[in-house]
């Protein structure tokens, strides 16, 4: 039978774009289906930027420019089944739905995971109520793919800056960009108090790289798109794939079903709806799912494909703890790349955290990286204030936008089978398909970890000179939820993982160690759905590294190997 292409890829975010680059370079023909619109690059040679994203707070933050429009694509949320079918309809961890996916939005802090993150079940004691497992691969195997991911995306960083980083085979492809005033202030204070902040590796060009210019620090980075293509959003891999002449990208093409052949053990392609609502089928030797860890399980469930006992389960976010400091002077955190410093300290074992864990009846606790950030834009500041005299007085002083520094701890979220994505029984999207529904409650571990670290992060803010400090979490802690008017109870984290976990046992996982479905082996899951555990680091570099590894294996390319480079003392 003649197929339309070698592989059909659903989704054009970092996961799908990476696979497309590897496969097309290896000579495969690829069709990419993306439900969102194309605002990124011309799909005709020479594939120039479209210049449609801009420094425009209204368009990007309030008018759903990059999608998904929550009215067209509602998602639903509940904490647990006792709440009924749902308690919220609308935006639930929405990542952009557009050519480039969430890669456009992200401000691209791209650290690697550490060795232990792949083996927490073996290295650490079990925790009641959490299903910890090791990954079916380890850091040493992934290292060369991390290096390749940093090269493809274009990561600027300093290999020696983080004393706790895992081993590396070489330096970053670019030196770090300029430090933001506000991050330098808080990271000096953190150093004073014995922590170990470092210059963040970011997927932002510090020099001209791969035909794209250096970042000019415009400040509309996280939640925006880069108007000058200086960000390591998927523009680079998509452009490389397009240049091979073997990549056909179809925007406004909504994949509705993975189609199986009559044996039920092979996929024969994907059905999708075009912008006019007409159905089409793309036949392919292989199907690759890079729809993100929310949409990939939804598509599998709709298609009845994949281990039905596990698909959608073990949904993980990062449990976010925010410590805010208000300063008596302006921090101008609207200049620069949003976040220029990180620190890993809450991920590492330390006596105070061990004691706190024991007192809470937990064997251990692991937080996450702390991002040294700040800044919001003025509409965002304004709507958080109340109307009347105070509004204008506070806007002039700008306690939030211009005088607030923010630590965000991306706390590790332990996998629980009850946390999941499934299909809402009543709410539908604009295509008439059941909305995806999240059922999610954090584990006690995340809550105790936030309670332990939040006051310590506040102390760093005070050391840095903040005159007022406070903290909050997302999702809200029980003691805070009661006090606050919460319109959207879903966690605001945009790091979504775990909903088609990989493992060696076909009964307890969805994908094998090459990210192929156990039961339909020509379907490959390329996104963070496959993560068995979530670690305390941003997921995207790991998504890209895994996708390179899985796609190279698919195309029968030699595995990449690397050698440990001695650390420069």
């Amino acid at each position, binding site marked *: 039978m003649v197929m339309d292409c070698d592989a059909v890829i659903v989704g054009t975010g970092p996961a799908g774009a990476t696979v497309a680059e590897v496969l097309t370079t290896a000579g495969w023909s690829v069709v990419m289906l993306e439900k969102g*619109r194309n605002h990124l690059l011309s799909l005709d040679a020479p594939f120039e*930027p479209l*210049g*449609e*994203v*801009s*420094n*425009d*707070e*209204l*368009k990007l933050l*309030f*008018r*759903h*420019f990059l999608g998904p*429009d929550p*009215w*067209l694509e*509602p998602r639903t949320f509940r904490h647990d089944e006792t709440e009924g079918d749902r308690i919220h309809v609308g935006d639930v961890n929405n990542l952009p739905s557009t050519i480039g996916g969430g890669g456009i939005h992200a401000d691209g802090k791209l650290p690697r995971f550490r060795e232990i993150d792949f083996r927490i079940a073996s290295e650490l004691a079990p925790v009641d109520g959490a299903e910890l497992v090791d990954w079916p691969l380890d850091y040493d195997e992934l290292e060369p793919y991390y290096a390749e991911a940093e090269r493809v995306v274009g990561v600027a960083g300093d290999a020696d800056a983080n004393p706790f980083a895992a081993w590396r085979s070489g330096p970053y492809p670019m030196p770090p960009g*300029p*430090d*933001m*005033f506000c991050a*330098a202030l808080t990271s000096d204070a953190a150093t004073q108090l014995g922590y170990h902040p470092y210059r963040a590796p970011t997927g932002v060009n510090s020099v001209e790289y791969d035909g794209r210019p250096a*970042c*000019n*620090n*415009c*400040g*509309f980075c996280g939640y925006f798109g880069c*108007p*000058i293509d200086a960000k390591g959003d998927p523009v680079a891999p998509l452009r490389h794939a397009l240049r091979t002449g073997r990549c056909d990208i179809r925007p*406004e093409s909504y994949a509705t079903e993975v189609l199986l052949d009559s044996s039920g053990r092979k996929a024969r392609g994907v059905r999708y709806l075009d*912008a*006019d609502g007409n159905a089409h089928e793309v036949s392919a030797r292989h199907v690759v799912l890079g729809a993100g860890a929310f949409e990939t399980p939804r598509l599998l469930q709709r298609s009845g494909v994949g281990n039905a006992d596990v698909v959608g389960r073990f949904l993980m976010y990062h449990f976010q703890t925010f410590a805010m400091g208000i300063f008596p*002077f*302006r921090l*101008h955190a*609207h*200049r*620069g790349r949003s976040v220029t410093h990180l620190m890993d300290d809450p991920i590492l074992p330390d006596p105070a955290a061990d004691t706190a864990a024991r007192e809470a009846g937990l064997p251990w606790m692991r937080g996450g990286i702390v991002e040294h950030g700040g800044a919001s*834009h*003025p*509409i965002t500041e*304004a*709507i958080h204030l109340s*109307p*009347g*005299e105070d*509004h*204008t*007085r506070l*806007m*002039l002083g700008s306690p939030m*936008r*211009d005088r607030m520094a923010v630590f965000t701890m991306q706390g590790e979220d332990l996998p629980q089978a009850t946390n999941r994505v499934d299909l809402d029984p009543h*709410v*539908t999207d*604009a295509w*008439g398909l059941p909305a995806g529904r999240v059922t999610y409650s954090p584990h006690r571990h995340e809550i105790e970890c936030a309670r332990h670290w939040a006051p310590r992060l506040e102390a760093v803010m005070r050391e840095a000179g903040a005159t007022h400090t406070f903290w909050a979490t997302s999702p809200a802690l029980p003691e805070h939820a009661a006090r606050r008017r919460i319109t959207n109870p879903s966690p605001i984290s945009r790091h979504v993982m775990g909903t088609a976990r990989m493992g060696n046992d076909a009964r307890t996982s969805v994908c094998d160690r090459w990210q192929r479905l156990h039961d339909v082996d020509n379907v490959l899951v390329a996104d963070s759905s496959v993560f068995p555990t979530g670690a305390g680091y941003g997921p995207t570099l790991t998504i890209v590294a895994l996708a390179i590894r899985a796609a190279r294996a698919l195309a029968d390319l030699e595995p990449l190997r690397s050698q440990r480079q001695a650390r420069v003392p």
Partner: protein
Amino acid sequence: MPVWLTEHEHAVVAAAADRLIPPYDAHPGGAALGVADFIDALLGAFTFDPPRIWAGGPFSGRAGGDPSFEQFMDLSALEELAWRTRIEGSKGMVERERNGAVIGWQQQYHEGIAALGRDFCDVTPDEQDARLDRNPEFKALLYAQSCEGAYAAPEYGGNRGLRGWASIQYDGDVQPRGYTDEEVAGRD
């Protein structure tokens, strides 16, 4: 001339915006910042082609480059459905009522403005505040959109003369100039 509001409604929105975002020292209030023009442009977005929902890109021209914000962008059929539903309401049309009926902003403004009273512009500020408080849902909508009108890019109709940004020491969009490394790292 407003495009969607009547002259009277426009005046009421301006007066109300001045109570929600009052002038203060040298800082202009919602009325002087053109909040009513911004809201009128949103309610009448579909009287323009392309509709005035998304300004163009990549640059406004204020920091160099061509002024492309002025060329508003096309919406897809689905995006138009979503924005018309928000603005005009579902009006019993099946495709707009998939998950229930929607009361559009146009109707919320018509009714909300009427509820503030014919004489809203002429009563005392205290009385204006009291009337806004008696219509909390409309007040919340008006406040959220006044914030947008005061501080969004001026191409959307508000932030008149860039005074919304200037008074709060904000540069707004800065591409393609950006900031120098010294401006990022330095104290000032």
